[in-house]
């Protein structure tokens, strides 16, 4: 297997999954610390089972689609997905959008759970919160793994990247037992947005029969171009020093 195909897929799946698993972990941790670990684990387990069912149903269907058409569809979805992450990351990096705050998300979830704590359905609601978090964030992980892996038949390698992210988050999370707010989420989203957009353009092109100059290596060129444009946009959109001084005055 060509490393220039496998490594970007593993890296993209690992980094993107890291972001999603951290978000799911925050909710499950809030459930566990507020309402007990039983509903937290039950919700998580059911969420994982639902995800596994989705993968079991989806995976064979993907095999029925011709490769070039699959590359085109997945590439188009990756462009939409990647541009969305990239846009948000640039707006955050340039100060136009607030950074995602895991501690605030944790506090919000904890408050909601405490609000329902005396209800007879408290355990059920806590379990549902954990289930939703695992299922919804997990859906993004499943999409990313399939999207970065299916185009070149490296889904297994991309899955390894995602699994590594789960192990890292669980190991660190269980050790510190608090929201993983130190993880530079926007920097990760920036990198993943760049990678997924580049993958998307490359595969949509391949799906249309484009023979990219340098084959897989052209991915690096596309990525470099987006890095330059994104960095330029962050600098361009940052409020100027004069504007900042005006605000202070």
């Amino acid at each position, binding site marked *: 297997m060509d490393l220039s195909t496998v490594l970007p897929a593993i890296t993209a799946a690992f980094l993107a999954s890291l972001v999603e698993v951290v978000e799911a972990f925050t909710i499950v941790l809030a459930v566990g610390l507020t309402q007990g670990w039983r509903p937290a684990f039950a919700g998580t387990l059911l969420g994982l089972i639902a995800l596994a069912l989705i993968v079991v149903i989806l995976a064979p269907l993907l095999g029925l689609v011709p490769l070039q058409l699959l590359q085109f569809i997945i590439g188009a979805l990756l462009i939409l997905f990647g*541009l969305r992450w990239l846009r948000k990351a640039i707006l955050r990096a*340039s100060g*136009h959008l607030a950074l995602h705050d895991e501690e605030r998300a944790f506090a919000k979830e904890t408050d909601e759970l405490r609000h329902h704590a005396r209800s007879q359905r408290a355990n059920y609601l806590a379990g549902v919160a954990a289930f939703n978090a695992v299922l919804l964030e997990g859906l993004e992980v499943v999409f990313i793994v399939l999207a970065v892996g299916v185009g070149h038949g490296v889904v297994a390698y991309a899955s390894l990247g995602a699994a590594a992210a789960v192990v890292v988050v669980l190991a660190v999370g269980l050790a510190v037992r608090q929201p993983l707010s130190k993880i530079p989420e926007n920097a990760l989203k920036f990198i993943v947005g760049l990678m997924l957009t580049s993958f998307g353009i490359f595969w949509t092109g391949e799906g249309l029969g484009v023979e990219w100059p340098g084959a897989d290596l052209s991915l690096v060129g596309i990525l470099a171009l987006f890095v330059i444009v994104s960095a330029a946009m962050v600098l361009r959109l940052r409020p100027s020093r004069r504007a900042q001084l005006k605000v202070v005055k």
Partner: protein
Amino acid sequence: MNARFRAVLDEIGGLFVDDGSLAAFSVVLILIVAGAVKIMNVPPLWGGLALLIGCIAILVESLLRATRTGKK
């Protein structure tokens, strides 16, 4: 159950659509490039380059619009 199913569908839609115009322009660009390559026989590499430049233009336009209008 309906609300949960709806939340899952919203989440799936939200994976790809944040700024509606960004998503719409991207889809239109992809369809135009696909049509040009498959129907009008434009060389695929030209289509790929148009896709690359078009995506950059759409991203830049969306960012400038977001900062100008304050709609994030």
